[in-house]
């Protein structure tokens, strides 16, 4: 039940930030994708979420073997969101996920998501809390990135992210944002 996240964490420890196209010789039927994104922002660049604020509880990198050492704890605190007169907030449905319950709050101003937070997070045990504090901030950033990518949906939601995305969608629906 809990093996996979640990395995992932072990992978993370050595590899986070590595994002180049390695053309490993594998079965010849595969083609490396064009457009190696080597110049993409590295983890922790903190630039993808314009006008967003990082969660105040940055994940610990020292307390758990599942925490990657290169996790973007060094992300600069970007400007705190100021609530413009036209902005609106809503909290999505609390969604159960594999290790607990979470709810996502979203603030939109005009057509931009200006803030995403997780005001409600209940986990089943200490392990889950470790996992959640590690995963949630990453998801936060991904939502912002997704916004800049102009997408209709996200695939590949993690066990936590699935609940995150659902609650976020519910919150967006409530503020009639699209």
């Amino acid at each position, binding site marked *: 039940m*809990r093996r996979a996240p640990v*395995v*992932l964490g072990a992978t993370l420890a050595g590899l986070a930030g590595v994002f180049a196209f390695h053309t490993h010789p594998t079965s010849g039927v595969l083609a490396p994708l064009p457009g190696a994104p080597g110049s993409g922002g590295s983890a922790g660049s903190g630039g*993808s979420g314009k006008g967003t604020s990082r969660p105040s509880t940055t994940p610990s990198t020292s307390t758990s073997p599942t925490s990657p050492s290169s996790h973007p704890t060094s992300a600069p605190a970007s400007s705190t969101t100021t609530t413009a007169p036209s902005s609106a907030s809503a909290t999505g449905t609390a969604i159960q996920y594999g290790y607990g319950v979470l709810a996502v709050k979203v603030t939109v101003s005009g057509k931009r998501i200006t803030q995403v937070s997780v005001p409600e997070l209940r986990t089943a045990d200490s392990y889950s809390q470790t996992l959640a504090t590690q995963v949630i901030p*990453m998801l936060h950033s991904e939502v912002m990135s997704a*916004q800049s990518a102009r997408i*209709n949906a996200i695939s590949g939601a993690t066990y936590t992210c*699935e609940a995150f995305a659902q609650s976020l969608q519910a919150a967006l629906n409530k503020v009639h944002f699209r």
Partner: protein
Amino acid sequence: MAGDGRELGTSETPEAASGAVVHHSEPVMGTVVTITVVGGDLDRDGIRAAVDAACAVLHQADDVFSTWKADSPMSRVRRGELDLTRAPDVIGEVLHLCEQARSDTAGWFDPWAMPGGVDPTGLVKGWAVERARDVLVRAGVAGAMVNAGGDLAVWGTAPPEPVGAASDPPQGPSPWRVGIVHPWRADAVARVVELGDATGAGAAVATSGTYERGAHLVDPWSRRARCSLASATVIGPHLALADAFATALAVGGDRVLAAPWRTGGGYEAYLIRPDGSELATPGVATVVAPLPHSQRN
């Protein structure tokens, strides 16, 4: 809770060119399914009726196939209390698809290897989502997406202005753009899949991986949880099979690429492996776009 419907529901947006855009979230099948409809010529009542019918299809599938409901026909089949010949026809239909998926993946997707007897759960959600989408299509919408936690089926045009659009909305039919979450990069959607619908048959995307329900991916040979890839996305015509193929790739890794599923079915795969390398079947390049640099930072 997902079962609390008060915060779910529907939001509608008037849209001059392509009709109203409706978003609806429905708690069903142990998750929340999000439906997006571009209304086209349908009026609001028509859209409402179509969404209701699509949701009904999802709930019907849940009632028949849920392995959490002890009295569901599927649970009774699993316990040997209900013979397949007396079970609802859709169970036979889904198990037939499961057999196809097992064969096409050379056994790496195997509902018969699940503890407690045959369990089509890994395929039936996608099957139901696709049926729900088809209800919307038959109702006459201009575009539809049914999304169950990132495994989704689309048809027709996307809304003119997706979430986060800039101030210059594209003209004409829009492809559905689906971000593939990177398994560990903090700030990245790894790729964006563009699903145009030139053939009018619709399209589907499913992703499985070590970071998604990792412990639920069971190696059919060892019957233990196993993951070889970081992320496996399959793009193709049918969500039920795409979901099964993605699961097989996530469990079996590169070797599953040699299985029969790749021959002729119109399915493509995009893989992010544990070392960060990305691989794709040749046809993927036409639908997967790297994020422009301007959108990466």
